[in-house]
């Protein structure tokens, strides 16, 4: 017979509900605790360069020379900042048109064929580990550049090429979703007026999906900016701003990867590397906020 409405039969499921609530709450609390800790620890280590070692912030951000072993030790991070930005932006400049073409192919030109063959290709490209990209970059791209262009073959160009393939899936996936979400009526209206497919694409589809495409590009740039090993393997790692695209350079991530293991925890040199990590982390926040702002704009 059904139980009275308020008696202690309530106990078994009440206990169960509490188990559920507490367990899931703890999991989410762990997540929050993690990101807060990451920010706290990286920031406190990164800032100690300025507060404990009294390195000047402006000098770090704009200085051209990075010589932790020099007399006196100089910490100018501009070469790394420059390297990170130039490789990421160049990579996006290469990947964006490629990704756009791929998504147009998959959504407009050959949907069945495209989804069946190009989509898995994109997904596979996304799944290849970054060290493998670095290895192929080192074995194929760098020698190729060395033969064809002046210089050692390493540098910003090599980094950008490798990164562009790595971020291609990100851009393509977002562009494809954006194109597929367009109401059909929009394109049909254009065709009904006699426009060709290409005209429809660049006059109507492109402008309408532009915010979403921008989101994809920014996410791609963010991914490239944070990539460490693949870049470090092909960039050359010289701590100064290169004079050409084919001269050895460095990025924030490559500098950290290279030197973190060689410096003692607590030393100035080590703290300075943490400051580089702090710059990297802050750029992550900037990218997230840019993406959120773009998403808000595209909702209008």
């Amino acid at each position: 017979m059904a139980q009275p409405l308020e008696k202690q039969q309530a106990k078994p499921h009440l206990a169960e509900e509490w188990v559920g609530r507490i367990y899931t709450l703890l999991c989410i609390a762990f997540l929050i605790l993690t990101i807060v800790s990451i920010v706290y620890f990286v920031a406190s280590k990164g800032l100690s360069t300025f507060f404990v070692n009294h390195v000047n912030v402006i000098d770090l951000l704009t200085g051209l020379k990075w010589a932790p072993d020099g007399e006196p030790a100089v910490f100018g991070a501009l070469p790394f900042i420059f390297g990170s930005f130039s490789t990421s932006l160049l990579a996006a400049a290469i990947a964006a048109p490629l990704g756009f073409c791929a998504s147009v192919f998959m959504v407009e030109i050959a949907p069945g064929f495209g989804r069946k063959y190009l989509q898995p290709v994109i997904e596979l490209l996304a799944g290849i580990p970054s060290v493998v990209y670095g290895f192929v970059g080192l074995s194929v791209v760098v020698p190729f550049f060395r033969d064809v262009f002046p210089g050692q073959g390493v540098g910003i160009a090599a980094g950008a090429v490798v990164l562009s393939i790595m971020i291609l899936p990100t851009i393509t996936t977002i562009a494809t979703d954006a194109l597929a979400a367009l109401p059909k009526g929009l394109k049909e209206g254009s065709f009904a007026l006699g426009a060709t497919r290409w005209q429809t694409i660049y006059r109507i589809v492109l402008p309408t999906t532009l915010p979403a495409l921008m989101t994809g590009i920014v996410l791609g740039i963010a991914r490239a900016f944070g990539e460490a090993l693949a870049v470090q393997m092909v960039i050359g790692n010289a701590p100064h701003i290169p004079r050409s695209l084919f001269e050895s350079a460095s990025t924030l991530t490559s500098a950290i990867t290279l030197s973190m293991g060689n410096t003692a925890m607590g030393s100035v040199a080590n703290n300075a590397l943490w400051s580089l990590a702090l710059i990297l982390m802050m750029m992550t926040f900037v990218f997230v906020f840019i993406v959120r702002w773009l998403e808000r704009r595209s909702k209008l």
Partner: protein
Amino acid sequence: MSAKTANKIATGVIVSVAGLIVLVLAGLLGFILVRGLGHISFDFLTSAPETIRRGGGIGPQLFNSVFLLVLTMIITIPLGLGAGIYMSEYAPANKVTNSIRLVVEVLSSVPSIIVGLFGLLVLVNLFGFGFSLFAGALALTVFNLPLMVRITEQGLRGVPREQKEASLALGLSKWKTITSVMLPIAMPVILTGTILAAGRVFGEAAALLFTAGMSSPRLDFTDWNPFSPFSPLNPFRPAETLAVHIWKINSEGLAPDAKEIAAGASAVLVIAVLLFNFGARWLGRYLHRKFTAIK
């Protein structure tokens, strides 16, 4: 130029680009497999690496990668499921929840090298785990968690509302409804996503450089005591994984066959990732067919 010509040229360019991308993948995979497959042998897969002589293998590294993956998934899956269930079923629709979503988004964008640095500071040094599998597993957990949360949420959101309501209407508690009715329906999506996430974890290196470390002690595969320092099962020993090893050989490879080893190791890694990818796909299709064929 007429609109029709422009259209033809544009179409040509687009199709060529699509073809180019396929070629790039084929070239990439082809290069790795051609260069590397020849070097793979049973010996290669099981023997330890040589620092300066030729003939080294990737045995310990391969084992470490697998063991680390298992450890990481054991930790991440319950955490990710729990957090995902919270976000999908318990989180009220308010500003706090929006902030939590922002937190998850930020965590998913943090570069893995920073996760590794965080691991170095907190797990290796502060908590004193040292360079170890355990530190590596926790670092990879942090790296993997946002994805698991998203996968769980996606899976739960795909459960039809009436299923949930039917269970609640029978007088079942919310938690029981989630575990006995909703999760089973969401399982194909969650499972597929988890396998793909596992593929990502298997290939990750940047987060492990400073947590699981860049060396692996001489492992005694006959010693299965997890507390012994030479046992492969000891989670507190340094554990260079396959991906990290590839990076190390390329930067400091002193052995004369370093390039071949790197190629062979890359081939193994790529094959593993391909298996994860195809496995997830196949499983997704199989489960989907099984579920919908009943209808």
